[in-house]
């Protein structure tokens, strides 16, 4: 072995001249390694990278979704709150309107009652007056008739007689009244 080396030491070998065997082996070895790395290693690492990116992105997406949901809930709550306020407002207004309506109704009723009472009073007064007129007319009639018969029955010659008659009439009237 050392023999060859010593032999070789005599002449200088140009290091830039390639060896056929090494060229072949280099090409085969490189191709082999390339095929192995391409088929077995690169896809696996890429898978890991993709999974990692996915995991990070998935987490971010989840967080985003949660935030969105929270926001939506907030909006919903606010909406509900304002709706409730509105409802309270309408209720209050309704109550007020109803109250004033009741008052109005009561007033109308009271007025009507008053009117009715007044009308009844008017009617009874009218009736009484009518009754009084009727009875007065009857009495006046009888009195007139009585007076006329008395006048016709006795001759009214003088003042004295006349006054006596009137006095007597009035006395009679009085008497009849007290009867």
């Amino acid at each position: 072995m050392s023999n060859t080396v010593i032999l070789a030491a005599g002449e200088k070998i140009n290091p830039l001249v390639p060896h056929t065997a090494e060229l072949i082996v280099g090409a085969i070895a490189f191709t082999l390694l390339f095929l192995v790395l391409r088929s077995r290693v690169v896809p696996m690492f890429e898978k890991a990278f993709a999974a990692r990116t996915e995991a990070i992105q998935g987490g971010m997406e989840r967080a985003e979704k949660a935030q969105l949901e929270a926001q939506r809930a907030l909006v919903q709550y606010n909406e509900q709150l304002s709706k409730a306020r509105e409802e309270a407002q309408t209720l209050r207004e309704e109550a007020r309107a109803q109250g004033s309506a009741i008052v109005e109704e009561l007033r109308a009723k009271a007025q009507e009652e008053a009117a009715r009472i007044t009308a009844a009073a008017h009617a009874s007064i009218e009736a009484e007056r009518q009754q009084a007129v009727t009875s007065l007319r009857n009495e006046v009639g009888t009195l007139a008739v009585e007076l006329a018969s008395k006048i016709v029955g006795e001759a009214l010659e003088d003042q004295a007689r006349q006054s006596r008659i009137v006095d007597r009439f009035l006395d009679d009237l009085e008497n009849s009244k007290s009867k």
Partner: protein
Amino acid sequence: MRSSVFLSAEGEGFVPPSSNDFELPPIFGDNPFTTKPIFLVFLSVILVSVFFILSSRKAAIVPSKFQFAGESIYAFVRNDLARDVIGHEFMRFVPYLFTLFTFILTNNIFGIVPFLQFPTMSRVSFPYVLAITVYLVFHYVGIRKQGAWKYFKEIMFMPGVPKAAYILITPLELLTFLLVRPLTLSLRLFANMFAGHLLLLVFILGGEHLLQGVIGLKLISPFAFFIGIVLTFFEFMVQCLQAYIFTLLAALYIAGALADEH
């Protein structure tokens, strides 16, 4: 083995390491497929495959330390080299660039791994093979993307250049694309590994030789070893850097071929 070379050559004093030290004889008879570099290349394929298959097997969302180690290297090539350089079409080239980077890195680092201690890429054949693949890939990509005519027209007649300048630029551009790029790519890697290994040989074999000399030389020997160790760390940096540069340039060439105008 190298020390045995030395011992046999000792009679004539110190023989400085030369390019001949990279010509390792076949281990089994005369079969040229059984040299150390060839075994190392296959070893690198096995090591890289096993390491990445095991670390990527689970592909868990929360990685184990082992998976994280493999993943970091993959992510470095994928994101910092492929994606940042090539752009949106980068995913097609990730397996190729990933293989390129891990293959070169492992074979470079073999240069300082105890007992292996031989950077495979200091054998020029391997950088040649890799440069040829880069060459084929980026021209293929360019032709696929822009059509052969347009692709070569843009290489030869760069748009936005005065007509007269084509006399100078066209041959230069052609030379760059067809010859200089693959050649510099492979020679840069080869020369770095070759020179680095030679440097280590000089200091470590030199230190060993000094140890066999007279007492004064024996005392100097530790310094040689110390520098050898420092250079080993330096080599580690160079080995990583060269793997990175090779892959980066491959990505740049691909990006250039994909771009509509260079």
